[in-house]
């Protein structure tokens, strides 16, 4: 049984499991699934400054910080007890493209040749880690939610603004992955 769990899970197992988070949170306490809100709660709790956007009682949202603490813990458990020893199976077309940028190590969930403390202070590392993180945080709050709040929770409740947001997430991603990222990786 454990051997089966250690294999990479197919989409038709993982997708419904992720989707079940929506009713689980609703039934446990009428909570709405949305992860990027935690980034705001961190701002509100640690450095609200004089910004009205961060003046609210974040303590009422503490359930969500427990939820993301659980995600971190889930990452720990999966990495230390449920590891699949084989390297990730990358599509040959992607592997071929990445090889032209010198990326050929597929052993980790994040490419170790791009995401490491050593590469943090290179131009490529700064753009991808610091720049990418900034865009994720700024964009998700500007859009009013991220893939969890809009693409899963919003679409589950049939909200058309969430469909607009999801289409824009995908459009931005297509643009970056196919046109901008190759330029960044070439340098």
């Amino acid at each position, binding site marked *: 049984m454990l051997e089966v769990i250690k294999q*990479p899970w197919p*989409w038709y197992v993982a*997708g419904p499991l992720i989707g079940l988070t929506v*009713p689980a949170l*609703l*039934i*446990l306490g009428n909570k709405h699934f949305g*992860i*990027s*809100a935690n*980034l705001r709660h961190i701002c509100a709790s640690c450095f609200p*400054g004089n910004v009205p*956007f961060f003046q609210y*009682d974040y303590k009422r949202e*503490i359930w*969500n910080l427990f*939820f993301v603490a*659980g*995600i971190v*813990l*889930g*990452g720990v*458990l*999966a*990495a230390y007890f*449920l590891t699949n020893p084989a390297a990730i199976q*990358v*599509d040959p077309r*992607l592997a071929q493209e990445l090889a032209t940028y010198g990326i050929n190590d597929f052993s980790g*969930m*994040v490419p170790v040749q791009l995401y490491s403390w050593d590469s943090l202070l290179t131009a490529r590392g700064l753009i*991808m*880690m610091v*720049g*990418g*993180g900034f*865009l994720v945080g*700024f*964009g998700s*709050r*500007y*859009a*009013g939610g991220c*893939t969890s709040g*809009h*693409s*899963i*929770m919003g679409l*589950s*409740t049939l*909200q058309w*603004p969430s469909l*607009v947001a999801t*289409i*824009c997430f995908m459009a*931005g*991603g297509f*643009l*970056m992955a*196919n046109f901008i990222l190759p330029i960044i990786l070439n340098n």
Partner: protein
Amino acid sequence: MQPSFIDNTAGFEARSQDTICINESHLQHKWYHNFKYLIVGVLFGVGFVKAEVISWFRIQEMFRLQSFHMYGIIGSAVVTGIVSVWLIRRFRIKTIYGEPITFAPKKFNKGQVYGGLLFGLGWALTGACPGPLFAQVGTGATVVAVVLASAVAGTWVYGRFRDSLPH
């Protein structure tokens, strides 16, 4: 019940903009009741790792249309969510504390377009949206803490300049 902090965000409709909990419970629970959300988070996090949702490579494949995997996951998650929410509404299912489950409509504003595009650019760069970022740190990719810190900074900058941005 309207939480009081909503009044503090002047300018425009704040509730639709924020995935903040607007369904306040009237019950007062001890803090350790929050551990049930931690357990849901653990299951969710394990699923993220085991299905390779947190893999930078899977996200790149998705945006290059080289793999069905991520589309299958998001699609089946949404279908599961739609059916669950329909069942909750249809049978007026209550929370485990017997309180009604409520939904609030999201309102459209231009932020969903501009912010959505910016988020998408960041998603393809980091190969992770906020949930996977937390899970990646858990798997031992400690440098992702820098990405998360930068995401918190991005959120703060948005909050600071929110009123000057088109919505």
